[in-house]
Structure formats: structure tokens, C-alpha cells
């Protein structure tokens, strides 16, 4: 292991733009790892929450109550049609002032109940969730009316029809588009950087601010890491899609 560290120290000496400092400096390695861990946590939380929002939203879109329907429509228009970065800044700096706070031990700082990480999760999930609602709606509308009628004729109620027939079928139609949106979401977690959430981009920029010679290697690391993260997600989604396949339905 030591040999490898020496190698990178030497490399940094020989090529001042290729200082892989986080491979031999424990402190910088720690920064990168905590950043990576935060990105993973953000991604998982946002993916799960946004899918839940999507399913619930799509269900409510079919509600008989006009008010519920227009609320969902308003939500979609608001979150889908404004930039996620603006939403994030608005939530954190504007709405953040109105959330209840806990005064810190120093008597000055007010820790909002919702931290910057919390706001990042909320804002990014709602952003991606708005797209997910429409994605699931596309799937639901692709289920033939006759299939619903068949379910009704078997004595199923509305909710039962949705849960056991319409939704499982619609999911199969929705997965490719859902895949796209979730991949986008994982990449969009980098915007949490704007409200100082210490995720991978934040930590990477901090590293190359302190060590400009580490900029190229750190950018390379970012590129590779996001390719890997998205790769894992896509692999999971593709496996899911294959497992969900019904012979004769779709292709």
C-alpha cells in the first residue's frame, strides 16, 4: 500500500496537475469519502421519496374530487416548470426562515428543524416527483379500459382495481421513463452544493480549492463516481424491468 502512496506522491511531484492527493493524504481521503457517502444517502432518499410522490400523485390524479385533481395539477406545474436550483435556494433561504427552530447551545444559532440536507431531500424529491407523477400517469393511461372493466366485472372496487390490476400493469410501461428521471435525479443531487450540503461535489470543490494541483484528478473522480452511481441505479432498474416482464405484454 505504501508503495502506491509513494507513487502518487511522486506523480504529483513530476506532474503538478495530477496531484491525486486523496489517495495519499488521509484528511483529503476522508473528505472525499464523507462526500461520497452523503451523495449516496441523498440519492437513495430522493429516489425513494420521489417514487412514492409519483405513485401517490398519479393515484390522486384519478380522484373524483376536482379540488384534489387541481391541487396535483398545480403541484406538477410548479415543480416541473421551475429550475431545481431556484427551488432549492427558495426553500432553504426563504421558507427556511418560517420553519420552527431550535436555538443552539451558543444562544445564537438557530437550527431549523429542517436542515440544509433536509431541504435538499425535500426539494429534489418534489422536483423529480412531479415528473414521476406524469410518468406513472402515462403508464396508467396505457392500461386498456377493457382491462379495468374486466376487473370491475370481477367485483373489484376502485382501489383494488388500481392496486392489483392497473398499477402493476402501468408500472411495466412506466419503467423506461422512470429510469430516465431517476438517473437525472441522482445527477441533480449535485445541486445541493448550492446550500452547502457536504456532498461529493462540495467536498471535491473544497479539495481542489485547497489544492489546485488536485483539480484534474478530482474532476476525473467526480466523472467516474457519477458514472458508477448511475450505473448501479440503471443496473438495478434494468434487472427490475426484466423481472417484471410478462410474456406477451409489451415485447
Amino acid at each position, binding site marked *: 500500500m505504501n*508503495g502506491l502512496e509513494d507513487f502518487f506522491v511522486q*506523480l504529483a511531484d513530476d506532474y503538478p496537475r495530477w496531484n491525486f492527493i486523496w489517495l495519499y493524504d488521509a484528511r483529503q481521503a476522508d473528505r472525499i469519502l464523507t462526500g461520497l457517502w452523503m451523495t449516496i444517502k441523498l440519492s437513495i432518499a430522493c429516489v425513494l421519496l420521489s417514487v412514492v410522490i409519483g405513485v401517490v400523485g398519479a393515484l390522486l390524479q384519478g380522484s373524483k374530487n376536482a379540488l384534489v385533481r387541481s391541487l396535483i395539477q398545480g403541484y406538477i406545474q410548479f415543480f416541473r416548470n421551475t429550475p431545481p436550483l431556484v427551488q432549492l435556494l427558495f426553500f432553504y*433561504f426563504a421558507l427556511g426562515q418560517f420553519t420552527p427552530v431550535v436555538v443552539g447551545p*451558543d444562544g445564537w444559532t438557530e437550527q431549523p428543524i429542517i436542515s440544509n440536507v433536509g431541504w435538499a431531500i425535500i426539494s429534489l424529491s418534489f422536483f423529480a416527483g412531479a415528473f414521476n407523477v406524469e410518468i406513472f400517469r402515462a403508464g396508467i393511461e396505457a392500461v386498456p379500459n377493457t382491462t379495468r372493466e374486466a376487473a370491475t366485472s370481477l367485483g373489484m372496487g376502485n382501489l383494488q382495481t388500481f392496486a392489483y390490476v392497473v398499477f402493476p400493469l402501468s408500472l411495466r410501461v412506466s419503467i423506461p421513463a422512470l429510469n430516465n428521471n431517476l438517473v437525472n435525479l441522482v445527477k441533480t443531487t449535485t445541486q445541493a452544493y448550492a446550500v452547502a450540503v457536504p456532498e461529493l461535489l462540495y467536498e471535491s470543490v*473544497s479539495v481542489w*480549492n485547497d489544492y489546485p494541483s488536485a483539480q484534474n484528478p478530482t474532476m476525473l473522480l467526480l466523472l467516474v463516481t457519477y458514472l458508477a452511481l448511475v450505473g448501479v441505479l440503471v443496473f438495478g432498474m434494468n434487472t427490475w424491468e426484466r423481472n417484471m416482464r410478462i410474456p406477451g405484454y409489451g415485447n
Partner: protein
Amino acid sequence: MQKLMKLTAALAAMAIPVQAVAQECTNDVWNKVMERGKLVAGVKADYKPWGYRDTDGSIVGMEVDLVADVAAKMGVDYELVPVVGSNRLAFLEQGQIDMFIATMTDLHDRRKIVGIPSPNYYSSGTNILSPKALGFKEWVQLRDKPVCAVQGAFFNKLIEERYGANIVAFQGTAEAKQALRDKKCVAFAFDDSGLMSTLATGDWEDFEMPLPTEDAASWGLAVPKAEENCIFGRFMSGMQYYWHREGRLIALEDKWGIRQTAYLAEQAEKFKDHLPAE
């Protein structure tokens, strides 16, 4: 493993133009500026009063005046490109700007990437802006407390490592100051001269700059690394020398309402011609 190392070294070598050879002056950037008749310079746009947006949106400030002076002496026009701490080196390296004067502290690791001609044109230290109510007296009182800062400041690391503060770094000074006002942190760590001018605006009456200033550090302007010891770099050295000698920097401090720094007085003294009085 040996193979992997060789491969990595080979890849790295391919990616980097060999620097050892780059001794001869080609003066590419200088010639480009002269042919184009325009100097493209990076300045801050959020760092009052060194470089900031005026009410009409144009970028003004002490460093903008310096850029204008450089362009005037070169006999060309100039265009300003707003930069921040985290992108200015890359902008210069990639040729998006020809040079920058952007409140940058002169550090070893930065000199590896860009050319920083001597003498430095300015100097500042590190301090904090904090609410009077907290009554900070010493740096160590910041331990384990959230301290707002701006990405790209070299002292963030020092405050973290030396005093154990939790740095919460935003992209610009506006966000960091807003976060301090919103009580998201106990202090805003920044250049003492920048904090002085913030306090001087009168909008921060309940705040103070309470600590002994630390880490006095010199500010350097930057030219591309290859031009450091060529015409451009030497020319910029000369500009800075004359700025000091003629008291231009001190005059600009007055113009922009910056508290007089001892550093500039020292430099003016140092570079003055030592001829006996007639």
C-alpha cells in the same frame, strides 16, 4: 501492480504537455491580446469593493480599476469576466481569460498551476464577522461551531484544522452573509479588509470583527504559467512595482473606502527611489 502504475504514469504523461520543455517564450497570450486589441480579464463580481456589480449591473471596484490600468498601458481595450475562487485558476488555464486580478492569496500550490508575478499587490489577513451578542474573543472559541465561509478561500482549511470549527462553505459571499443573518452559523470567516468594508456599510450594526487578524497573506494576480517569465509576466511585475511606487494602490484604497493597510505603506516605502533629498 507495477503494470498498473506504469500504465497510470503513461496515461498521465500523455495527458500533460511536457512542462520541462516549455522554457522558451512563445508569448502566445500576450501576442493574442495585442492582435485582438482586447484584454480579457477575470475579476470578482461579488467581492465589494474589490470587484462587484454596480446598480446598473456593470462590474466595478478597485481591481477593475487595476485591470483598466493594465489594458491602458498595453494600449488595448478590456473585457471583464466574473470569476469565483473555485473557477478562476481553471478559467486561466483553459484560456477563457488572459489574466486575472481576483483577490487571490498567493500560495505555493497555486503557483504550480498559474504564473503569479512578483511583487504582490495587496495583503490581507483572516478574521470573522460575528454577532456582538456572542462576544467572541479568541479563535479557539469557534471549536465545533458552524462557521459560514465562501468556497475557495484558503483559510477555510486553516480554521478547520487549527481551531476545529465546522466550516459551512457557500458559493458566494451573498449566500454566506445571508446564512449568518439567518443564524445558520455563529460567524462568517473572511478577509479582514473585506469584513471592514462590510461593517462600514452600516447594515451590520449588531455585528463585529472581534478576533485578532491571522495569517496575513499576500494577494497575487495571475497570468498563464507559460507566460510567467516572458513578456506578459514581466510586464505585470512592472505594473505592480509601479502601482506600489507611485502610491496608486493607496489612492485606490481611498477611492473605494478601504481601510488603509500597513502593507501598502511598507511597499511604497520599499520601492521608492532612495536618492538623497536635493
